[in-house]
């Protein structure tokens, strides 16, 4: 089976999953919106009853009031889309979402009501923070992991393993709170909030942004790089025991060339997969970490949307996260198949 066919299969597969997930998400959020819309409608109806309804009752009698009330309720139901059957609404919402038409929010966020525009403002910010941090993590993790694998069992290797195990058990947001406590409150080196100063422009703005980014980036790197180094180390140790490394050593190839030229290349597929997931995952931000640092990215946006019950924004963001995940699955499969020819045989042999 050819590589292209394998790829086509993976993409079609991802699209089918995306369709189903979009449908599930719509079903979930439409349900939530329906309830809040219902209560909004009754609120408005009550208001009408007390003002205009009372007037009609006084001047035209009870019967006219009942009639007017029914008409008002019908018009309100139409306004809040309560007269459409549930599944119809779910279908409509899912189709609109798939067409990237997310609609608007009831309150402006970042100075606009359009969901797509809001997401467009937040994504670069999350990229700025988490992608920067992820790149640092990848470089640091791979470098330290390879080093630990070369000197397996040394003090450095042991220290790195313990560090990795400890940081694996830490919630990132708590570490963020700790660093805020130490570096922002106690030592005063960094600001307590990472919300940008909107007054600044040009060079001052860039300086402000960098200054506010340092602590969140440092937190992310601190919590994550140990795990990366540890995984890289484990993969590398496995590779270093293989025969072709022995052969290379026997041929007298310099050690660093063996490590970076032979071993790391052979260990590349799983590491590349990890890199793709990490990089694409970084676009989504991290909800709680952004809350702790008060950073205006995707994660905090999601929280704001939840708090203000902005269903359209929630659907938009969830859809964005899902597309990102599926894209990374396809991309990872693609590169994995490219780097390791055994994979596509294994995965698609039974097709």
């Amino acid at each position, binding site marked *: 089976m050819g590589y292209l066919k394998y790829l086509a299969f993976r993409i079609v597969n991802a699209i089918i999953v995306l369709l189903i997930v979009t449908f599930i998400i719509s079903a979930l959020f439409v349900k939530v919106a329906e309830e809040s819309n219902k209560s909004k409608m009754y609120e408005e109806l009550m208001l009408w009853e007390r003002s205009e309804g009372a007037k009609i009752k006084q001047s035209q009698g009870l019967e006219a009031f009942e009639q007017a009330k029914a008409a008002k309720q019908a018009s309100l139901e139409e306004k809040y889309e309560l007269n459409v059957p549930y599944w119809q609404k779910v279908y409509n919402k899912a189709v609109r979402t798939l067409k990237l038409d997310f609609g608007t929010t009831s309150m402006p966020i970042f100075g606009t009501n359009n969901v797509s525009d809001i997401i467009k403002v937040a994504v670069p910010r999350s990229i700025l923070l988490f992608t920067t941090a992820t790149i640092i993590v990848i470089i640091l993790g791979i470098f330290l992991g390879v080093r630990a694998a070369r000197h397996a069992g040394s003090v450095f290797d042991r220290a790195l393993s313990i560090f990795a195990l*400890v940081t694996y058990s830490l919630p990132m947001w*708590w570490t963020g709170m700790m660093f805020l406590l130490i570096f922002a409150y106690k030592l005063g080196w960094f600001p307590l909030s990472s919300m940008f100063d909107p007054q600044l422009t040009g060079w001052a703005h860039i300086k402000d942004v960098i200054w506010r980014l340092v602590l969140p980036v440092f937190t992310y790197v601190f919590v994550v790089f140990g795990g990366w180094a540890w995984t890289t180390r484990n993969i590398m*140790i496995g590779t270093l025991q293989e025969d072709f490394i022995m052969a290379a050593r026997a041929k007298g190839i310099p050690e660093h060339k063996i490590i970076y030229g032979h071993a790391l290349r052979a260990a590349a597929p799983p590491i590349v997969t990890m890199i793709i997931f990490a990089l694409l995952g970084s676009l989504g931000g991290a*909800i709680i970490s952004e809350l702790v640092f008060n950073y205006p990215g995707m994660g905090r946006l*999601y929280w704001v949307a*939840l708090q203000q019950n902005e269903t359209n924004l929630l659907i938009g963001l969830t859809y964005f*996260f*899902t597309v990102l995940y599926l894209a990374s699955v396809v991309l990872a499969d693609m590169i994995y198949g490219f780097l390791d020819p055994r994979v596509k045989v294994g995965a698609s042999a039974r097709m």
Partner: protein
Amino acid sequence: MRWVDIKEGFKEFLDEFKKEKTGIAGVILLIILVLVALTAPYTTIPNLPEKWRNSQYWEDNPKNVPPTWYNMFTSKKLVPQEIYYKDELKITQLNKNTTIIEVDYVLPENYYFGPQGIIVKNINVTLNSPYEVPTISVYLERPDGKTVPLLINKQLSSSLTVAVGRDSTISSNIYIWLVNVTEGREITMFEVPLETILISDMVAPLFAKVEPGMNVDDIIENPQPLPGTYKLILKIDNPAPDENKVIYDDIKVTFLGRTYGTMGTDYLGRDIWAGLIWGSRVSLTIGILVAVLSTIIGLIYGVTSAYLGGNADEFMMRINEIFASIPSLPILILIGATAGHITLWFIVVLLVIFGWMGIARIARSMALQIKEQTYIEAAKALGAGNGRIIFKHILPQLLPYAFSVIALSVPGAVIAEASLSFLGIGDPTAVTWGQILNAAQAQAATTKGYWWWVIPPGLGIAVVGLTFVLIGTALDKILNPRLRRL
């Protein structure tokens, strides 16, 4: 498999496990954690979860103060909590109508601040003649001979709590006294600047140097401690002692500390140490339960999928992908926020629903290899059913792997529960580390420097996580020799 084999295998496993130092460390930590969780009601306050949200229960505790041992690391020593009951008080019946209660309180040298407040409560009053209500006056006699009138002729009832430091009338009286001593003039209640007495600490000046000529604002902002013996005097006048009875048996006088207990207090005066100990119960239960359940479900799902093969496998893997591609934390938050009443069980179910996919994938790939072996073919030829082959022949082969997976997925579950609680979506009837951190975040504890409120719950999460990571990696090394790396 015979019983003897199992016993042999288990013994062999134990011998190997004993060689793993990290594993042993993990087991010791686990035993300590379980003991702490089990003995929580006896080592701290019984039924804490019921009391945790009741702010009245914590009234007698100082608010936002560090632990007592913090004094060892700071030059500015802070007083601990001191409570006096009836036996430690000097109660004198002056005459038929007047009773004087005296409390001696010592502010030692080197201590930077006096108490955070003084609370007098639980004086029982039986009223039979409502027109001759007993009254109470409270004075503080200072080591420099000055006496501060804190409260004058307040009507006494059983529900009365004298709260120096929290009652604005008393704070006003302190301000009036300060002005009187420093400037020598009498001011009325209406001349007291309201913002000053509401915002600033009006108890510290009581235990500070106050001399004529000093500036009142200086004393409030930067009080110089005055060590020595203070005497709190409660004067109770009962105009009709025969009708209205005043009983002092339950009286409780608390000098609120500037430090408290093993871990300090939060904004409601709650004992953080007790919360921490109780929090371990939820963390351990949820962590283990979620890890065990999602591993079991994932294993069965993966093995079934691999065994059935063909279209069934494709279908099951698509469902797996759907679950994996739904962003789980946001959806968890959403479900939690809309579900209304959330119990710990509900959280467990949610975390399991969004936690089995990865294990299912790995189990499937492992089962695909096992499936090809000849004894499975043999079992099939002998007419064994699908269920029997899956549960009897394939799953047991994956069990060693399962144990390390369970251990290694506990930290994730613990962090997930803490994250949900941190966002305010947790069981309101439970005390959890995430909820303590949630309160800390809501009260901006990090930006105020309340480290004792932020560090310990997170350390608790980290310790539970580390315990299971240590056990998990040790198990992984022993039970999955193929994956053994040095």
